[in-house]
């Protein structure tokens, strides 16, 4: 992680727009990925990424460097925005543009590919049902390919706590996937019976 000049860059970003621009370029990919895996579509990922950085810009003058990575602060802002997004979405059942496009694509692609895509979508759907911190752990580990120590810095936990959370997350995810598969199996059975 680029720590050496990060503190200096953050201090400069409070007075210098170009410095904030550099911080943006450094982290836009990470924040976008985090939001994409939490929301499941590019349209909302773009919208919430923009809001994350606009909010960060608004409050950067009050940012206090306590030694944690700057990305931890950005992830926290993104986390809050995603939580609000989920709340709003639950209130008004919305079908995103991405979903509609995907549905159209699925109808046209070969069966094997469609099945593979469905399998991935199902896995990501189940991941999105996990508590936010467990989702964040999986995103930082597999998408950002961070070590447990780096994840610990971002999430404000020890390396040991991250290892333990990873274990619990895999156990919970496996259980969820099994429940889902069983549920689907029963669902299919009922349909064919009827």
């Amino acid at each position: 992680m680029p720590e050496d000049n990060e503190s200096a860059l953050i201090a400069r970003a409070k007075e210098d727009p170009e410095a904030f621009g550099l911080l943006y370029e450094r982290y836009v990919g990470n924040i976008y990925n985090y939001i994409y895996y939490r929301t499941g579509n590019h349209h909302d990922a773009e919208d919430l990424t923009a809001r994350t950085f606009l909010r960060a810009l608004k409050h950067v003058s009050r940012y206090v460097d306590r030694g944690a990575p700057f990305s931890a602060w950005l992830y926290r802002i993104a986390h809050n925005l995603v939580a609000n997004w989920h709340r709003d979405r639950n209130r008004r059942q919305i079908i995103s543009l991405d979903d509609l496009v995907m549905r159209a694509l699925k109808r046209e692609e070969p069966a094997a590919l469609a099945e593979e895509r469905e399998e991935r979508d199902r896995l990501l759907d189940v991941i999105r049902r996990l508590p936010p911190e467990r989702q964040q752990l999986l995103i930082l580990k597999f998408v950002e390919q961070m070590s447990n120590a780096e994840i610990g810095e971002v999430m404000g936990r020890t390396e040991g706590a991250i290892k333990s959370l990873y274990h619990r997350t895999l156990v919970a995810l496996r259980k969820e996937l099994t429940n889902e598969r069983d549920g689907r199996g029963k669902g299919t059975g009922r349909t064919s019976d009827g």
Partner: protein
Amino acid sequence: MDRMDQNEERAIEMLAAHGDVLINRREAVPRTDMSDEEHGRLAPLFQLAERLQENMYPVQPSAAFVRGLGKELVENAKRQIALTKRLRRAVLIGAAALGSLLSVASVVGAIVYVIARSRARAQAQAIHTPTSHAEGAPA
């Protein structure tokens, strides 16, 4: 209970090591480090981690979006910094004006106080000073 804790500790460490191998953070964990029983117990979790590794990969935001947002942020930052500077200057001017107003008020107050005090003293003297006519009057 202790044995259970130990087993869980081992499972946590092995899963963490396996995860590090998946993201190329360390060399492969030798199979000999695990008993058959351990491997059997952890195999479904290893497979799940491998599935996650295959399906969770970085996605790229569109270049147009990154460029557009970057431009918007720099413009916003410029506006925000200019506004902060203007606000800071206004606060400074306001404080200076208030300061000078206060110092003028305190000078005026001091003058008024001195005048009022000397007037009061003169009045008090006028009341208490006996007239020479009264002193020389016959009994």
